[in-house]
């Protein structure tokens, strides 16, 4: 019998979002009760804003029982820092800022002029985890972002140096997530693992979360570089061969200004953005991130070194 769309219920995205929210809240509460020193990584970007909202709900009517930490490359969009600080104030949580610049000044990492600082974050993150003795580090990474991430557990065990070993991941069954590892290992925890980019935007719309303005269409001076539109900033000066121009753009991801590209867009509202994401033919990283283009396995390699 041929079935038709007419007599079949359509996917209920609202119900789907509630399912995802319930799962994430469960994970956040497990972290709070199983670990002594959790921390939540927060950049002010869209995924970490969703993660922080879920934490707010998970511990309501109490407060979020752990601090948040920003691993700061120093190459920020000012709108994102404002958004970060506004949310921190609203929730009354403690913010720790771990600065890549401090790692550079201390000689822990060496900056390569003209190269993004994203890879350097790994050392700053590892040092901050050791300094504060964090045993669970919550991040907003999603499995749909990248093919190596698609392989990672929700509770991802990391060794003393924060390294991920994809061959020796711990089994993860039912809702019984792994508990505390011994031997100085720690856990990276990704409550948004099962969310897609479209889920994130639909949820932001549903929750009416305030976002940094750069996620919405605006005019900006950009230069085309490596197939992306890079904003002209003090950290990303124009070279002689390039001709900057004004384009109507927005950001799909927000990271280090030097490796995050803008996309041409006229999406000015959350409804516009949800519509745009629902029909896009490019992944968010493919469209906007230079750091994933280095090789076929660049994310896997960075995770093996202790990246988020």
């Amino acid at each position: 019998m041929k079935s038709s769309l007419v007599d079949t219920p359509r996917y209920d995205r609202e119900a789907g979002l509630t399912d995802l929210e319930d799962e994430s809240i469960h994970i956040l509460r497990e972290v709070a009760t199983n670990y002594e020193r959790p921390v939540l990584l927060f950049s002010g970007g869209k995924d970490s804003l969703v993660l922080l909202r879920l934490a707010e709900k998970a511990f309501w009517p109490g407060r979020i029982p752990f601090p948040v930490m920003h691993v700061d490359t120093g190459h920020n969009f000012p709108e994102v820092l404002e958004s970060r600080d506004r949310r921190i104030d609203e929730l009354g949580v403690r913010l720790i800022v771990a600065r890549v610049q401090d790692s550079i000044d201390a000689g822990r990492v060496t900056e390569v002029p003209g190269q993004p600082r994203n890879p350097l974050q790994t050392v700053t993150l590892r040092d901050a985890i050791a300094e504060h003795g964090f045993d669970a580090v919550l991040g907003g990474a999603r499995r749909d972002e990248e093919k190596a991430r698609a392989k990672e557990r929700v509770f991802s065990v990391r060794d003393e140096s924060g390294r991920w070993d994809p061959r020796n991941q711990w089994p993860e069954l039912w809702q019984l997530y792994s508990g505390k590892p011994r031997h100085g290992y720690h856990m990276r925890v990704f409550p948004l693992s099962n969310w897609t980019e479209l889920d994130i935007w639909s949820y932001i719309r549903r929750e009416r979360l305030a976002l940094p303005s750069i996620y919405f269409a605006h005019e900006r001076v950009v230069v085309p570089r490596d197939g992306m539109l890079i904003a002209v900033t003090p950290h990303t000066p124009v070279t002689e061969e390039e001709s900057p121009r004004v384009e109507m753009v927005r950001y799909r991801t927000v990271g280090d200004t030097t490796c995050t590209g803008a996309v041409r867009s006229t999406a000015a509202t959350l409804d516009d953005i949800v519509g745009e994401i629902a029909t896009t033919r490019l992944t968010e990283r493919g469209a906007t991130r230079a750091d994933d283009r280095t090789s076929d396995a660049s994310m896997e390699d960075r995770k093996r070194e202790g990246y988020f």
Partner: protein
Amino acid sequence: MPGLLRVTTAGSVNDGKSTLIGRLLQDAKAIFDDQFAAVSAASRRRGRDEADLALHVDGLREEREQGITIDVAYRYFGTPRRAFVLADTPGHVEYTRNMVTGASTADVAIILADARHGLVEQCRRHAAIAGLLRVRHVVLAVNKMDLVDFAEEAFDRIAGDFDQLARRLGIPSWTAVPISALHGDNVVARSGRTPWYSGQSLLAHLETLEIPAVDDAGTRFVVQLPVRADADGNYQGYAGRVASGTLHAGDTVTVSPGGWTTRVTAIDTFDGALEEAPTGRSVVVRLADDREIERGGLLSTGAVPAVSGSLVATACWLTDEPLRPGERYRIRHATGEVAALVDAVESRLDVSTLDSMPTDELGLNDIGTVRLRAAERLVLDRYTESRVTGGFLFVEDSSGAPVGAGLVEHPTRA
């Protein structure tokens, strides 16, 4: 209303699983242009003319280099009718533990069989795991139908074999679909080459499938953490997730392990109070009694769960070091983590015959029956009655790593 459907896929090596998933993802437009370009470029580097979609599915360098799947990958795709989370698990026996990981949260398992070879041992193992973990619906995808000229008899024979297997394994509901993943027959659209097949395509079947609720234990709610609001010291609630059944405001519930009863006065969430919370909802419950309940306490309606430190369980062993009598592990259960001693290893399941064989140890990937004694009491349901309160992990004390999956058969008297 259909929400998320969690699907796990399993098949023996070379049954065409990665090809099937690649086709499902591509036809559902879940492979984006930049991903497809990357796969095409990688395929060319390997000397292939056509894009090999397995290179997209296999996310680790080692997997792409060796052409095998090592660990579970999670895929997300949606159609207008439904959204899917697909746990793509490896077929090789060495990675059975990863299949167990995928199956434990799945609503549906797709088991691939090669139309030429039928139900080989790996298919039987996967069916056994799906049955054991109580995946609620199984789809037997009889693949490579093109290589048997789309013969109805070949399909019927394999489906008939599976029927017997499903009966023995207690798989409650299953459907067989004849497909060719390579050519797309019956994957997304019905194929003209199987006129004798009256069912839906694989995707249409998944889109329209109604998943029955099968947890019969009654309502179960495990306390994750007690909540006290700072601002208002009077607020005392219990945060947790409904493990099975539906919890209603006004319900009289039994509190385990204490065994006392009380009444649910409110079901709260950040977004407002609820009259009822179905399975899976994360909420804060307030009770009429102000007696303290700790993390791991369980609220129930219906049959009261057992409170016991001794149990008989089915174990799926997931590590090289065998499970033997006299060994000590920690048991990680929804209601607590406690030290436990293995009293006895009684039998091992022979996956080809499905017979229980006497044994005194379980090795990697073995499934068998064991007796355990825990240092403290746990609140237990039979796994067949509740996935959440009937399942547990064996945890190695020295590393904290889970080394086995346990399914409560029944509690015993200490």
